[in-house]
């Protein structure tokens, strides 16, 4: 049996609120999940869903109200666990009086890297994130995208087994996003575990072995992007060309959407063969038949809407 790289059990976080901090606001509720070693795991959710809270709990920036979490089998309170993790904060900001090379050298000193090894590592990381020519410029002169790259460099500087990235694509232009995606894929190829939160669902779909969707502090669904969307298959789509006027095809043509001679017809899975027979009988040219799957975005929106509806229902019953 392999140990999960990241595992949480009933992880809950309440923040005090109100004038005298007498009230509590629940930010994360009973999160139980596992991220397997070597997988890329995407953590999806709208703003305020609890993604950053979870990540901050894992890296020890905040403390759980209840529940436990372990990384590589070690409790998150174990400082030695931090030798094995890399973390990129959301919208990272670093000491602006340092150059990128100085910042990485500073961070490397906490990881028992010696002088020559440290210099070599810093140069390698700057090259990896495309900052080799900007390494001697003070960070105060860096753009948001460049800071994000420095953040990524410091997160993977010490070859961690587990890399946790909070919104790594945020603030990046398409080129920067592509570069970050490539780095994540490279980390995955190297067998490292990557967990990242994102709003950009296409990135999650492209990069992740599994995703978890969190809404309102609760985990609503976990699985491979294909798996979780397939659970809600929506039927079949037939693409065909038709120029005739057979009466037998009239009913189907009425349901189809037309673009020139081409028609797009959506039918239920059980009705597929019947529809194909009718089209063949009417001399229509079948171009393709595809299964209609909801996109990850549709699945995500479905969960978000369900989560909000549930929250609203709780609010109404509470009043």
């Amino acid at each position, binding site marked *: 049996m392999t140990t999960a790289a990241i595992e949480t059990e009933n992880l809950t976080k309440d*923040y005090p609120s109100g004038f005298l901090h007498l009230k509590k606001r629940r930010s994360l509720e009973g999160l139980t999940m596992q991220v397997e070693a070597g997988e890329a795991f995407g953590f999806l959710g709208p703003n305020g869903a609890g993604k950053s809270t979870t990540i*901050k709990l894992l890296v020890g920036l905040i403390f759980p109200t209840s529940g436990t979490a372990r990384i590589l089998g070690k409790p998150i309170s174990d400082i030695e666990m931090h030798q094995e993790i890399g*973390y990129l904060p959301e919208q990272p*900001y670093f000491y602006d*009086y*340092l150059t990128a090379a100085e910042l990485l050298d*500073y*961070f490397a000193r906490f990881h028992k890297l010696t002088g020559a090894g440290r210099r070599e590592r810093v140069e390698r990381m700057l090259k990896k994130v495309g900052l080799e020519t900007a390494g001697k410029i003070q960070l105060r002169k860096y753009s948001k995208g460049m800071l994000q790259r420095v953040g990524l460099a410091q997160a993977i500087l010490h070859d961690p087994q587990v890399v946790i990235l909070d919104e790594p694509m945020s603030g990046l232009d398409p080129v920067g996003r592509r570069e970050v995606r490539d780095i994540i894929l490279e980390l995955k190829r190297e067998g490292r575990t990557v967990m990242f939160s994102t709003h950009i669902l296409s990135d999650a779909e492209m990069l992740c072995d599994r995703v978890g969707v969190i809404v309102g502090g609760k985990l609503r669904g976990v699985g491979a992007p294909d798996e979780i969307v397939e659970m809600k298959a929506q039927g079949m789509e037939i693409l065909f060309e038709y120029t005739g006027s057979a009466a037998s095809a009239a009913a189907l043509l009425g349901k189809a959407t037309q673009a020139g001679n081409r028609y797009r017809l959506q039918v239920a899975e059980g009705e597929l063969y019947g529809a194909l027979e009718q089209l063949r009988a009417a001399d229509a040219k079948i171009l393709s038949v595809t299964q209609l799957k909801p996109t990850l975005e549709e699945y995500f929106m479905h969960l978000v809407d369900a989560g909000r509806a549930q929250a609203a229902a709780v609010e109404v019953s509470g009043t």
Partner: protein
Amino acid sequence: MRRAGVVALNTFREAVRDRVLYSLVFFALLMMAAAIIVGQISIGIESIVIVSLGLSAISVIGLLIAIFIGVGLMYKEMDKRTLYALLAKPVRRWEFLLGKFGGLVLTLTVNTAAMAAGLFLVLWYVKHSLDSEDCAVLVAVYFILLKLALVVALAMLFSCFTTPLLSILFTAGLYISGLFVQEMRTFRSLTPKPALEAFMRWLSYLLPNFQNFDVMASAAHGRAVPGALILENTIYAAVYCAIVLLTAAAVFSRRNLK
């Protein structure tokens, strides 16, 4: 401890790059002006005036740095979230705090040492010589440094749980109160109420006693400072700093960095 040292050296680098040591220019200009003017208006007591002025300037400049930079030291890290990436490294929060403290004390030591060197230079310019009596000035400078370390620890403690403005007010308030602890201990002569007298006495022992660090008058008049006082003040500052830093570490270690 090694990790606290890494944080300390970076804090020192931050202070240097934030031009904290520019205060030395102000001190140099002040001392040059004093050397020229004092020679003309205070015949016979030039060295007393120079030492008093120099030590006061070292103390005030050091206090401004200790309070304002000391408060900003923790607050800036939390506000700008620069410590987020750092605390994900194998660094304990108390190591970070100790490193920050050590870095600012190192900055203050360099700053104070440079100002003290400037003061001796001006003293030599005015007196045309330096003698063993001037050792008291060195002791006074050392006491200022101990006092500043204590102020830095207090500023860091407050900035761990409150806003910068309140931290500055609390630190400055404690510093000013600490200058009157002897008066608090003799409060019984001013009030007939024993409860109030007892409260003031307890408070006087709780507050940092900054009065003990003030030997400017002795230094200015070339009177030697007793060795016992040097030892006593060193131990007092070390123990008080340790207590304040332990409290700060306990507060900071439980703080959620939202």
